[in-house]
């Protein structure tokens, strides 16, 4: 009963937020704005979904803070040097998955804590990005590619399609396939999963690889979205992505990291920013409200027990 209240109360709050924003600026509830939110949200969603896969298995992944930027920088750089886009994409996805393999190897096989490993990976990726781009922004002028991010399909922005398709694939993968159930089992009770014969090491590695793949996609889309690879592009997503995942635990599968929750969480974060902008409120209110929202949501969803963080 309490779980029902908690789940729905949050959605009710969200409903109020939507009503408030629409009241302040009717343009909020238009199809165009809806599309805009999806465009702004796409990359955050994809990254957050990647993190969620890892967190479902009980680990954490920070490496996106570096991988997204690195992939973006190399993508922009190679595109401008006229390498074939397809090969660049394949190369970079391989690189991103490679980072995932590294993470997975260190966490799964060497049993190092994922917090540290992935933070280390993030720094390494950031260092490599800096070495490649020297901190300069590389603008993309290739119109054909930019259309991928800017264009629309059936009246809905491409970026929006990307995020929705990712969501659907992941929902299918995590909740309707056996590997997905293995992920969730490992996250639920790792020892039990191992006892039942699930290869924990393999599946954790797989989770990190999948996350890496998604970071790679996000890393490629981001420069296309803003027409260039900005230095340390991944860092802007560092906190919002995590916040989206945490927000996700307050919905759908209360208390657990889950795919649809994360997607909606990311959407709410972006919607909040969008609404505040349309209301003409100063930009700094966005992090303020996102922080308040995060705290309230998690407080509602948590039991009152004190939790500890162990290193």
């Amino acid at each position: 009963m309490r779980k029902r209240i908690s789940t729905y109360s949050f959605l009710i709050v969200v409903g109020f937020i939507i009503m408030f924003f629409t009241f302040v600026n009717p343009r909020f509830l238009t199809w165009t704005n809806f599309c805009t939110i999806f465009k702004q949200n796409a990359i955050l969603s994809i990254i957050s979904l990647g993190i969620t896969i890892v967190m479902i298995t009980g680990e954490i992944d920070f490496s996106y803070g570096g991988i997204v930027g690195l992939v973006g920088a190399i993508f922009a750089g190679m595109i401008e040097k006229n390498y074939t886009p397809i090969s660049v994409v394949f190369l970079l996805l391989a690189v991103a998955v490679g980072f995932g393999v590294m993470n997975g190897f260190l966490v799964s096989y060497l049993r190092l804590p994922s917090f540290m490993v992935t933070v280390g990976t993030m720094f390494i990726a950031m260092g490599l990005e800096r070495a490649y781009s020297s901190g300069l922004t590389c603008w993309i002028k290739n119109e054909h590619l930019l259309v991928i991010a800017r264009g629309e399909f059936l009246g809905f922005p491409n970026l929006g399609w990307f995020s929705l398709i990712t969501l659907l694939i992941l929902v299918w993968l995590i909740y309707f396939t056996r590997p997905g159930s293995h992920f969730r089992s490992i996250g639920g009770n790792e020892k039990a999963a191992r006892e039942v014969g699930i290869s924990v090491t393999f599946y954790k590695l797989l989770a990190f690889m999948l996350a890496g793949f998604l970071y790679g996609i996000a890393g490629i889309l981001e420069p296309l979205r803003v027409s260039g690879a900005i230095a340390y592009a991944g860092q802007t997503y560092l906190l919002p992505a995590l916040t989206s995942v945490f927000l996700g635990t307050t919905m759908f599968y209360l208390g657990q990291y889950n795919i649809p929750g994360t997607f909606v969480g990311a959407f709410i974060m972006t919607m909040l920013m969008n609404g505040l902008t349309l209301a003409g409120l100063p930009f700094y209110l966005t992090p303020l409200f996102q922080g308040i929202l995060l705290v309230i949501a998690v407080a509602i969803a948590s039991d009152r027990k004190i939790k500890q963080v162990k290193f």
Partner: protein
Amino acid sequence: MKLNAITAAKQPLKSNKYLRILIPLLLLGSIILIFGMLKPAYVSFGNILNLLSEFSMVGLVSIGMAIVLSAGQVDLSIGHIAGISAVVTSLLLVRGVSTFLSILLGIGTSTVFGILNGFLTAYLGVSSFIGSLGTMFIIVGVRYWLTGGATIMCLPSSYTALGKMPYPLIFLIGAFLLAFFLMDTTALGRRLYLIGENLDASELCGIRIRQETFIVFIFSAVFGAFAGEILAARQGLANVDIGDRFMMEAFIAANLGRVLSGERLVALGALFGSALLVFLIGGLTMLGVDPSWLNFIKGSVFLATLIGSIITKRGEEE
């Protein structure tokens, strides 16, 4: 516990209390020696003073962070809390408020956020990771609202004087003595250690885990606030995101201290950790290492402390 070559080899590192102090000192000495040889300017009076000032600030936040860590929590917002204290103080100073009152109100603001963190973690059951993350967001919003993004400059000399040695070091030593006294002599400290080691057992022993967990966040906020004040005083101005870097450095230093000096020597370990970090980074900067590489190095040191703590933990488990 089986007695064989392996456990015997692991014993000296754990049971020898003097090593916990000796090894960090040796490391520090080596760092100073090596950099001093590579660049004599490193050991010049001016540079040492600089490093000591930096050490004071990082040491303050590290001690705060270490106290929080020892209770099994984390305060990611400590950097932002340090910063907001400096921002509030600076805003008041340029409006002519007395130095003393400005600093008091700045630290007070930080304490409010510490209370927020403590309340979220200890009474609402929000994981401190998420809770302090939220506090970070909130502080970001608040400081932009207060400053409009502008840097506050031309801070009065009565304030900036506090940034010059020996004041920063005095603050650090004061904080260290307080933390040392608290954690390693009083019953409160012992309770905090116990909470960190085994929360459920502590609760069953009758320790009021909520109150005690709440307190650690006040400490990290106040210590952080002082560090922020020193930083603003030294810079002579307060930029909007002042102090943000402290979080990572405090975390690294506190962990480094835990690995080297063990989990029980919280204050001293944090001090060692910050000294090592500051002198190392300072030396590398002096050698002209690219600032982006410094991030990489900080990350590597962090990974190293992590691996170190795993190794020492595995040893204890036998």
